């Protein structure tokens, strides 16, 4: 259902044929919403949260889910540009991807406004929703910027890496979950509680992705070799910096340097970076579960949300944490 609604939105918002064609092409790539295997998890979360509070999704809830997916796709496109990722046979330039991302973000903002109108929001209810949305989108954009900004820096702290992740991914989660609630109720406390739940769940999910991508296999490109500033990679690099600081004039021993060069994935695994990242990720998952338990005690039900959380969970093996 969401894919059809998203196609309808693209047809509506992107009337110019070349722009629309490029948009459909871009979003049909692996990892994007119009790809055959796309789960559209953010939009599904929006709809399920609406269902928990208010029953079968209204047109406003569906519009809100479309808005969430438009924001998600904009973020993915920006990531493509920031990371320099290119799929085989992909002929979109970074400038084109950026133009598409701006288009998606603008369309997402329009869709949120339309969803609020469809939900009958007006007066102080509309103002609260607008302020809440402004804060969400401000967080996501700040996270995107911080991601690019940290890439330029040699020294990054774990705190900065986690802040970037939670602003960016957590902000999108807050938007997906809170907007579903915001379409169903004007009770800002309920909206905020669902927002917190989404924030923790999506931050967990991104931290897990970062563990997967940190050092997948010796012959594959990894965040480690590309010098990305994700939490496990930052922890690892700071471990090396700590090692350097212990020796004379900050120069690492030739023996240690040779080991790092020859077996960077082995050194990464023995640094504790993966366990560190897993513990922090688990903390966010547990917080999301606690948020859900709190919501359940208030509303009496959380519908299918526990199963949705379960679909986000991964085993230690999936992030390389077991033999």
């Amino acid at each position, binding site marked *: 259902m969401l894919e059809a609604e998203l196609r309808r939105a693209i047809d509506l918002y992107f009337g110019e044929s070349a722009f629309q064609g490029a948009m459909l092409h871009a979003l049909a790539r692996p990892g994007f919403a119009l790809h055959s295997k796309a789960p559209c998890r953010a939009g599904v979360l929006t709809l399920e949260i609406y269902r928990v509070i208010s029953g079968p999704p209204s047109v406003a809830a569906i519009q809100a889910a479309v808005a969430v997916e438009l924001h998600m796709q904009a973020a993915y496109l920006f990531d493509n540009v920031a990371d320099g990722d290119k799929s085989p046979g992909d002929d979109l330039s970074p400038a084109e991807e950026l133009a598409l991302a701006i288009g998606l973000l603008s369309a997402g903002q329009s869709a949120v406004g339309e969803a609020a109108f469809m939900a009958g929001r007006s007066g102080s209810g509309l103002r609260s929703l607008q302020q809440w949305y402004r804060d969400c989108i401000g967080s996501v954009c700040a996270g995107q910027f911080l991601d690019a900004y940290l890439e330029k820096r040699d020294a990054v*702290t*774990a*705190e900065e890496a*986690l802040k970037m992740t939670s602003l960016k991914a957590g902000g999108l989660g807050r938007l997906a979950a809170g907007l579903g609630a915001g379409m169903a109720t004007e009770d800002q406390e309920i909206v905020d509680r669902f927002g917190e739940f989404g924030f923790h769940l999506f931050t967990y999910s991104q931290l897990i992705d970062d563990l997967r991508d940190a050092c997948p296999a010796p012959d594959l490109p990894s965040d480690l070799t590309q010098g990305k500033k994700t939490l496990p990679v930052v*922890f690892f690099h700071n*471990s*090396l910096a*700590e*090692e350097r600081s212990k020796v004379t004039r900050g120069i690492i021993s030739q023996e*240690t340097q040779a*080991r790092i060069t020859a077996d960077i994935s082995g*050194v990464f*695994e*023995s*640094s*504790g970076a*993966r*366990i*560190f990242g*897993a*513990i*922090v990720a*688990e*903390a966010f998952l*547990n917080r999301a579960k606690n948020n859900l338990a709190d919501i359940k005690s208030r509303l009496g039900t959380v519908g299918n949300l526990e199963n949705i959380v379960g679909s986000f969970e991964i*085993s*230690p093996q999936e992030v390389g*944490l*077991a*033999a």
Partner: protein
Amino acid sequence: MEIREFEKAFRAAIGSDPMRPALAAPGVSSQVDLQMPTEFLTAAKTLASRSGEQPKENSLLRAIAAQWW
């Protein structure tokens, strides 16, 4: 606990040499409320074993995890 405090405590727990994490801290109380999933602790032990250490007890790691939560 803030992430920077957690990182500091975690680094202390895995040992002073980041290349050879011990993940063990004899003498530290293990009577803490463990909220960290057992499977992750098992994985941590496995990883520590792989790096050449023989962890006896993950109590400090557990304590850190409990504080973090």
